[in-house]
């Protein structure tokens, strides 16, 4: 068992362990699935945590005339999910694999947030990030991570609070 004396009493254990991140993103269209209004993604943000899971936040346009809206999610397993309208009020939803049907009932947009381990691949210090997106994506990397490869040139790169943030076209 770990003893308190064996480990450094600071918040920086991960420094040096999480070093390199190989980033690979493919952009393509999204296919509508059911009778509900198909997904029309307007914005996508992906934040990678130090454990390799990713927080996905997407905003999707909804047809106010349609009672429900389809949203195609990234990944296959989801945790810590919230689904809300433009005013931040929660929506009811149902899930069938990676297809979500949201009861939008007159609202014109949906914000979906969740954590998924499925879009990252970890091989020791080398991680890859791969998914399909119909729109440009903001990606936030974990602290101390470096990008060693990209499949596309980012539209924007910045450092925000010690984290690399990329806008992928």
């Amino acid at each position, binding site marked *: *068992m*770990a003893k*308190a*004396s*064996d*480990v*450094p*009493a*600071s*918040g920086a*254990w*991960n420094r040096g*362990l*999480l070093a390199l991140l190989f980033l690979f993103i493919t952009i393509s269209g999204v296919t509508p699935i059911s*009778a*509900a209004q198909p997904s029309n993604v307007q914005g996508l943000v992906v934040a990678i*945590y*130090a*454990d390799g*899971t990713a*927080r996905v936040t997407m905003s999707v346009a909804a047809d*106010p*005339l*349609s*009672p*429900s809206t389809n949203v195609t999610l990234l990944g296959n397993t989801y*945790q*810590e999910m*919230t689904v*809300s309208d433009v*005013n*931040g*009020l*929660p*929506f*009811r939803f*149902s899930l069938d694999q990676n297809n979500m049907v949201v*009861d939008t*009932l*007159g*609202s*014109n947009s949906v914000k979906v*947030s969740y*954590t998924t381990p499925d879009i990252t691949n970890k091989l020791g210090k080398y991680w890859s990030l791969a998914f399909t997106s119909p729109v440009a994506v903001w990606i936030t990397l*974990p602290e101390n991570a470096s990008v060693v490869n990209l499949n596309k040139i980012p539209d924007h790169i910045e450092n925000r609070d010690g984290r690399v943030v990329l806008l992928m076209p």
Partner: protein
Amino acid sequence: MQLRAQGNYSYAYSVALQAMQMFGEVYGAAETLTYREGSSIEVRAENATRMRAAIERAYEFINEIEDELNSAEEKGYNVTGVREALDLARQSLANATSLLDKGDMDGAARSLADARGTLGQSTAQLQRLTNDVESVRLCGYLENANDSLNRLELRVREQLNLTEAVRNQTMEALRLAKERLQLANTSLAYGNFDDAMRELESYRYRYEVTFRYMGEEGGSVANLEQQIAELQWQAMDMERRIQALNSQSYNTTALEESLNGTRALLQNMNVTNPNEAVKNIAQVRERLEALKDSVEDAEGQLCSEQRVRVQEQIRELEGRIAQLNSTIAALKANGTNVSQLETMLQNAVRLLEQAQTRLASNAVNSAEGLVGQASAIVDNASEMARTMGGNHGTSGDNQIGGQGGQDQVGDNQSSGQGGYGEGNNGKGK
């Protein structure tokens, strides 16, 4: 399974989902605790990294649920139960972070598991809140759909130039669409949300069929009617947003006048003269766009006023924390045990840091909520410091035990939350 056998699929699904979530929590907690298997420093460090990430994720989840709660509270929903659960989860996470900082992996893992368990419970409570919100939303949708159908029915019956056969066919489609709306209404009255949604999908299909029938003969007229219907829904959405501004004490008179004018134009739209209708539709669209810009400006203005207020509160609290740190240093010099006070201030600082992060993400309501919590902690810490200042011989632990009724006096973080959780104690926790 019992619920499923009874045919209550929606509730069965919800309960199954919760069961899976609980399994997830337990599995997650067990996974967190497997760090014991590792012996090398690298393995332990990796476990600590994973635990920190899990804590960060949980905080993010809490912040997002809190955004929903703030919005729901503004609309008059009772969110007390969920909010208390979130506060508890946040306390457990602060505890986990503090223990992790001290290298106590066992304790940190337990606190993290506590936080996850509490979050699982809050998710179930949030589900009930969501059902309440969605019922209101569904009522609004039914009302709008009904208005839209009535308007269309009037036009088909009296105004549109259709042959008798097409008129009858269209009227029948409208009747069936109305029937679906009534069935949806009945399902909602019985609390059967899933059935109501199924009827609404059916209504929507029949509503579109109506335009298809009209289109077979009147082509452009059907298309114009469909555009008018869509603009009406946009106007309804504007009305909701204006009402939201009004509920935040914003003067919405000009916005309401503009909306009423636009609605009157829509109401009196005559598609029997297509050229004129096209012009009027373009005019309404333009007015709705302008109104949307004005509403967005007003929303932005309210948000930036709130942002400034929250930033001022953060600065004020930072000043008070700095003063308290000086007091703590003086008390420490006199030999007083101030560890609990220090922990309370660390919690307050953490909350303020989170509030800054939320502000940066434009989640101003959530930031304000966090600042409120930090303020309560600082108030308690000030009171405790004042008491300690008057009696330096008394230990901080005893002071906390006396004030908050906490029994975990030996645990720095828990007793720190004693001050944080005094409000809860007062509510008979």
